[in-house]
């Protein structure tokens, strides 16, 4: 079931009404049933997968807790069960293809078996939640006593398909609080849902058309066009995923539950390290806590630290999808983080005036440079394969030359008048960047802590109007649903 579907428009209010009408003890079972209904509308058989994994993890993690001398073995088994499941569903065909390509290089012609495996929605997310739970119990945290509570932690429908990746210590205690209905749950929740739908339907889906055209047919676009299209993808993926997260958080809020944030104005990051503190926060913190730190983190010297950093990001890239371009994107992010560390150390060594580093101008230049570095990474992420990514990168590199002889006729997007989003791109991209700055300024002014009541109502009414007008009959799926 998609958040931007009529099914959800019926499902969510129904579950909401039942939840608040039922006594507290019946609410968690209700949400558990609702979450399975939500999941099984897509492919009922995969409900068994999530159920099987939930029961297996619950039993295995109980063994971790009870075991005195074999905790390490049991945590290893638990992690292995989850990773093997993920590997079978997500990486088996990729692995076989890679072996085939490797053998082909060695002159061996091998017809690999192609397995028709359909990736279960959300598997990457709930497997990460299971691993987090197992590792935390191994580290000494308490287990979840109730299987129903644990089942809901794993399957909670607002976060089931694409996160945010929850932490059980934050989520489970909320289930036992006998909350009373408050209108602020509805107000805050619906405001988030409307904002999320607005981000998805009004911005991301429209940008998607330009991005699809540019990344499928880069030969039809100039270097400057491709830069604009790359910026467009940067905003498409941000508004798509943060829109999804807003709907997820808003939906959870309707039941009085809080789930973690995922974004904090990522394109205002002044360096790549900061970017990863602002982008897909629940994933980056998961990677830090359950991959980077267990691998040794920053312990063991500079090179070991860099190796850990690089491997963490490369595997994080591969987590997004079983394809070389995702691996390349992850490796690129790892390399950037290492370079950033070296750059920071270099600045310290040469003793560049701290006044310069703390100047507004340096900060703005850092944001601009970081944004462009991140955008280059998005080319690897969005392109269908490394070959297309390479072609686009080469064309992007021609930008200085194109800018030196700039004329508007170089921009193919200005010539395509239908759909109108193409020429509008020259206005929309800067406007979206400025919106980041404005939101940041409003954050600084603590505007969002108590925005005027009338303004909140007005924003909701405007969003309802524009969403009813501009909602397409079939909106594309959220990008992160495929991961």
């Amino acid at each position: 079931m998609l958040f931007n579907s009529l099914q959800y428009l019926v499902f969510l209010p129904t579950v909401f009404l039942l939840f608040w009408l039922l006594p507290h003890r019946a609410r968690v079972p209700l949400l558990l049933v609702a979450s399975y209904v939500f999941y099984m509308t897509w492919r009922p058989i995969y409900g068994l997968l999530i159920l099987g994994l939930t029961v297996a993890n619950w039993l295995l993690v109980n063994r971790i807790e009870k075991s005195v001398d074999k905790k390490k073995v049991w945590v290893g088994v638990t992690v292995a069960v989850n990773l093997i499941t993920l590997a079978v569903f997500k990486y088996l065909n990729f692995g076989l293809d890679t072996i085939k390509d490797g053998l082909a290089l060695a002159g061996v012609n091998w017809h690999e078996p192609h397995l028709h495996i359909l990736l279960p929605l959300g598997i990457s997310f709930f497997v990460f939640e299971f691993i987090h739970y197992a590792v935390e119990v191994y580290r000494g945290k308490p287990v979840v006593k109730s299987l129903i509570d644990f089942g809901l932690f794993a399957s909670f429908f607002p976060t089931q398909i694409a996160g945010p990746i929850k932490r059980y210590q934050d989520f489970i205690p909320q289930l036992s609080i006998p909350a009373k209905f408050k209108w602020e749950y509805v107000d805050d929740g619906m405001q988030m849902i409307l904002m999320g739908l607005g981000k998805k339907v009004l911005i991301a889906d429209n940008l998607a058309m330009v991005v699809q055209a540019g990344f499928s047919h880069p030969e039809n676009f100039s270097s400057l066009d491709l830069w604009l299209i790359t910026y467009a993808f940067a905003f498409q993926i941000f508004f798509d995923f943060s829109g999804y997260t807003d709907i997820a958080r808003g939906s959870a809020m309707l039941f009085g539950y809080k789930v973690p944030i995922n974004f904090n104005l990522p394109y205002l990051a002044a360096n790549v390290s900061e970017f990863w503190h602002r982008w897909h926060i629940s994933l980056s913190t998961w990677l830090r806590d359950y991959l980077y730190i267990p691998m040794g983190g920053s312990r063991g010297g500079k090179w070991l630290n860099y190796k850990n950093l690089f491997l963490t990001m490369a595997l994080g890239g591969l987590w997004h999808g079983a394809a070389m371009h995702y691996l390349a994107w992850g490796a690129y992010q790892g390399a950037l983080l290492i370079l950033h560390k070296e750059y920071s150390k270099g600045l310290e060594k040469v003793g560049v005036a701290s006044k310069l580093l703390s100047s507004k101008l340096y900060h703005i230049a850092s944001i601009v440079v970081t944004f462009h570095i991140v955008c280059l990474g998005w080319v690897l992420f969005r392109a269908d394969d490394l070959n297309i990514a390479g072609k686009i990168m080469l064309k992007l590199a021609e930008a200085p030359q194109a800018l030196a002889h700039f004329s508007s006729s170089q921009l193919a997007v200005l010539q395509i008048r239908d759909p109108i989003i193409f020429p509008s791109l020259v206005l929309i991209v800067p406007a979206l960047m400025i919106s980041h700055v404005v939101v940041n300024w409003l954050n600084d002014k603590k505007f969002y802590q108590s925005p005027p009541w009338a303004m909140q109502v007005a924003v909701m009414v405007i969003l309802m109007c524009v969403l009813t007008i501009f909602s397409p009959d079939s909106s594309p799926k959220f990008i992160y649903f495929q991961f």
Partner: protein
Amino acid sequence: MKSRFLVAIIAFVAVSAVWGSTRLGALAPSDFPFYTWTACAIEDFLSNEQGRPQIDLVGSSLMLAPIGGVDADFTNAAVDAPHHHRSLYFENAFKKRTGESVKTFNFALPGEMPSDAYLMTKFLMKGEKRPDVIVYGVGPRDFLDNLLPSPSATDPYAWLSRFGDVNDRISLISPDWQQRMNYEMGRLIYPYGQKVDLTNSFGRVVASTLNKLVPPTNGGSPMSVRRVILPEYRNFEVANNECLFTPTTDANRPAFSDNIAEYKKRYKHMKWDTYLTQMRFMIDILNIARERKTHMVIVAMPITPINRSLLSDLAWDTYKHSIKVIALAKGATFIDMEGSGKFGLKDFSDTVHLHSGGGAKLLDILAEKLSADRAVMTALNQPAKIDDKSTTVAGLKGSLQ
């Protein structure tokens, strides 16, 4: 009020109601944002230049392809298919037999279903545009296409439904609860119901502003570029001279094209609901025509035995029997081209579509049958030339026994 959201909902309902009362942003039904085969046909049909056609030809590509192809041969000139809405060859053939001129309008469209033909008949073929005769060429696909999710999924439906209220048939048009909910929301919430118009109005304002601010050089990028870079965008849109029927002869006619795989998909699982729904619409067409004193001619279009063999005997017999019985019961003329034995594989360009040679044969037979049919000629205010029993009610009764 305790809740900001409740206030917002009440305000939204109020805005929607006020907006609906002013109908701000609503466009005329014939104000098309872009042109598809259907939009072109509607525009041509409603234009004053067309006048009142006496015979409207209706059907899917089974009708469209031979009519257009034959006229390309007949005029020895390329025919811009989406904009060609007469059958010059038929008019000529009919005149040869009767000595009288008739004006035709070809409303056959690719993929047209009886549900689409129903909307055409109900909303457009009335008043000054009421034809004397409607010739409806049907094939089994029109009733048995299981790839059609619902009658509202076609391009003709999207444009034709703008011309009237479909509420009395909504349970047939939108059988799925989500489609139905979508429809009901459109009736209740003005901006939702008018979103196509409002989006187009908004798009026009933006486009006009942009065109003033940044005029495109050399008239902008051609549609052919967009077709390449955005193949899914407005995939029913058709440009002038994009789909042409070109003159052919027996010598240079394109080779037979095997499209059986497509029909295997269409007939893979029989959906009797679809069949019954579309049959119901055919009955509705016949009823409306009778009320308006328009005579209906149902033509069972010829298809190849290869295509027919994809259908089970049950499906085929049910189809053939139903159209014959329904036509008979409603006082229509029934012409069985499929069972006439006059069409062979050599007349077809693929497993269902006649090529222009086969099309000429079809139109010749049609002209002959119509000119000989008393009911048709009476509707046209002309005397029948021959009384062909096989197409009359009495003749049909005989054939059914």
